């Protein structure tokens, strides 16, 4: 696994840039240059949402940030603060929809794992006001620990999935998604991938519409998912699938680009762009069926298969529909990720499509042999550096020196020069894995987790450890922010973290605060040594603000503390 694959949240704004205007109009065309993520946000605002709920996660963060920055210009208030995690975000969005209003909920792909319980069951209850879940997948794992394909979740929940191919389509799709959600009374999944979310293009907006009025009907038969209701609701959902397919059949997101020749391309989502690019570059004329609205439009697909001899299936993500189509039409006529025509993993691009269409790429200049990698690193002067220095000193005196860690800037402690942490799996797993290892007899068991990750899903694990009296030391690296994604407010930090730990039942005598600074090194080593040696649950909170947050506050004093 590469380093980048271990990280979860990204989205940092560079120094000089963060204070510049990043979106602007062309006065002539009224086009705004927007990131794909921002196009979703603007589309949702114009579609009349009353709120957005989200936990930061690359590449989805900018959706919510755009709404936070621009909601002030709206006539009606739009609720947009960060949620503690994706599950709380999803449920709040469902509650807003229950009350009749439109809500958007945003997360990265692995965030949908956290929200999956709410998501799947909201398809059973259905919705009132439009509910759109915008999920940003990260094929090639630029900033994530896997490249799971959220379309699978959409299929699993049996709800419509929309997968636009351009920034303009993202904008237009946002409103379309809310309309579809209100027509079908189902949540709609809007899938975007890193490349589109983090790429800018000109986007033209349409008139915005008003929010829905408050309207919360009593509908126990839908919303109380006791078995007798759940069975009926589930049967309704199954019964609606034909209707969902009809919508896909006539959707503007599913369209044929006519052409000649016996090989056609079934291009899903952003793969469409790459095929079109190859067509433009090489003057090809292959027919393309663009798919951006699921469930699959069966009739359109059948017509396309009748028209072409061989079909290249290009999906940005898992070969979800390639597998299905191979089962239906047979292997002989289909090329794609499963037979090696396209790479099995990673994001597509024009290069991979060029080769897949049997064309030769241009000769390229190789990367010189002197090239070396430039891995990311903790900022110079970051408190995490001082924490790891102290922790490494303490752990070096133990024969077993495993440190279970989590997702955030401090994950960079896995790299040289610290090599201080040994696990990073999913949000909150540091504490629970340390607990399990402690239960297995590993001594000492140490977890390092950030303030935001702790409130996301570390607190419940700590409660488990306390209830079970598992001997472990939890170090909360409290930098006062969600730093890795660019410094969003975290749900709790500072003295509130202390209160949370006490409330969960941490013994006050083993709840310590340190300040990770060079000048405190000896003192910090002493505290860590003592607590790590103690045979019970101890928590050490290392408190020092992220330098980037400090700098941002200096640049813009209005930034919320």
């Amino acid at each position, binding site marked *: 696994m590469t380093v980048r694959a271990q990280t979860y949240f990204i989205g940092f704004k560079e120094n000089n840039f963060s204070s510049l205007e990043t979106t602007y109009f062309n006065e002539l065309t009224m086009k705004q240059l927007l990131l794909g993520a921002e196009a979703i946000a603007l589309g949702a605002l114009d579609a009349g949402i009353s709120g957005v709920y989200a936990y930061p996660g690359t590449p989805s963060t*900018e959706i919510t940030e755009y709404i936070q920055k621009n909601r002030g210009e709206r006539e009606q208030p739009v609720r947009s603060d960060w949620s503690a995690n994706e599950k709380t975000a999803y449920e709040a969005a469902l509650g807003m929809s229950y009350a009749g209003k439109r809500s958007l909920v945003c997360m990265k792909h692995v965030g949908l794992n956290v929200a999956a319980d709410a998501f799947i069951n909201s398809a059973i209850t259905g919705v009132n006001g439009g509910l759109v879940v915008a999920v940003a997948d990260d094929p090639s794992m630029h*900033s994530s620990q896997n490249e799971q394909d959220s379309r699978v979740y959409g299929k699993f929940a049996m709800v419509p999935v929309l997968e636009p191919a351009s920034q303009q389509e993202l904008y237009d799709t946002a409103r379309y998604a809310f309309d579809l959600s209100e027509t079908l009374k189902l949540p709609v999944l809007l899938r975007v991938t890193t490349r589109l979310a983090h790429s800018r293009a000109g986007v033209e907006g349409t008139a915005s519409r008003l929010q829905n009025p408050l309207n919360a009907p009593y509908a126990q038969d839908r919303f109380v998912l006791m078995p007798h209701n759940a069975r009926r609701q589930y049967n309704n959902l199954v019964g609606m699938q034909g209707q969902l397919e009809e919508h896909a059949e006539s959707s503007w997101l599913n369209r044929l680009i006519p052409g000649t020749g016996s090989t056609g391309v079934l291009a899903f989502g952003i793969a469409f*762009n790459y095929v079109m690019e190859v067509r433009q570059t090489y003057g090809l004329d292959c027919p393309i069926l663009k798919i951006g609205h699921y469930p699959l439009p069966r009739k359109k697909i059948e017509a396309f298969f009748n028209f072409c001899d061989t079909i290249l299936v290009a999906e940005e993500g898992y070969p979800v529909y390639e597998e299905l189509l191979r089962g239906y039409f047979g292997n002989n006529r289909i090329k794609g990720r499963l037979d090696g025509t396209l790479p099995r993993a990673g994001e597509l691009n024009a290069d991979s499509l060029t080769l897949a269409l049997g064309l030769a790429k241009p000769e*390229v*200049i190789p990367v010189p042999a*002197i090239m070396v990698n430039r891995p*990311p690193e903790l900022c110079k002067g970051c408190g995490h550096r001082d924490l790891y220095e102290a922790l490494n000193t303490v752990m070096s005196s133990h024969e077993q020196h495993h440190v279970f860690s989590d997702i955030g800037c401090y*994950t960079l402690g896995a790299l040289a020069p610290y090599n201080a942490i040994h696990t990073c799996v999913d949000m909150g797993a540091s504490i629970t894995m340390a607990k399990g290892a402690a239960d297995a007899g590993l001594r000492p068991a140490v977890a390092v987790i950030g303030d935001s990750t702790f409130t996301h899903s570390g607190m419940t694990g700590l409660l488990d450890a306390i209830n079970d009296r598992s001997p472990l030391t939890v170090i909360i690296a409290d930098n006062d922010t969600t730093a890795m994604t660019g410094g969003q407010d975290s749900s709790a930090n500072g003295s509130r973290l202390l209160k949370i730990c006490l409330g969960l039942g941490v013994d006050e005598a083993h709840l310590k605060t340190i300040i990770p600074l060079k000048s405190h090194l000896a003192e910090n080593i002493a505290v860590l040594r003592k607590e790590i040696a103690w045979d019970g649950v101890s928590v050490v909170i290392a408190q020092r603000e992220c330098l980037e947050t400090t700098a941002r506050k200096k640049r813009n004093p209005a930034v919320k503390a």
Partner: protein
Amino acid sequence: MHINIILAGVGGQGILTIAAVIDHAALQSGLTVRQAEVHGMSQRGGAVQSHLRISDKEIFSDLIAEGTANLILSVEPLEALRYLPFLVPDGRIVTATDSFINMEGYPSMKQILEELHHTNHPVLVNAAKLSREAGSIRTSNMVMLGAAAPFIGITSEVLEASITKLFQAKGADIIAMNIRAFRTGQAFSQLQATAK
């Protein structure tokens, strides 16, 4: 008109500032723009790049295909070489020569320059020095933009108007300094071209 630019640098060096100016200028010129950027952990001091595409036709892919970039504009010399496979064989490299060393095994400047000189008339800019002359090291990105201006396909007037627009909130002095930096880079680039 169709121009593909790879912007390269190290996380934190601010290549997105350069991208923002070009984006704005292209949009004002009525051109189509696509600009893919990295919001990544790599932005903590890792290698970062942005694919910037400008055209008077429709642009489909957010990414530049290999062997099709007309220009690599880098604010760090080693980073300029990292993206060589994207360059068309006679494409141009415009790079700052100020190295940023935050890892093991960074090659010698001699080796890097040798590789750079294998490419078509590279424009090698001492951006730190020139930006200080313009008024502040913080304007080095505008020095680099100036040096690359002859290869972008957008007039300097439009680029300068975009700099003015984007730095508007920072006041007249900052605008003037950045324009000065832009012109310094541009003059340097033209001088190198005539010297060849």
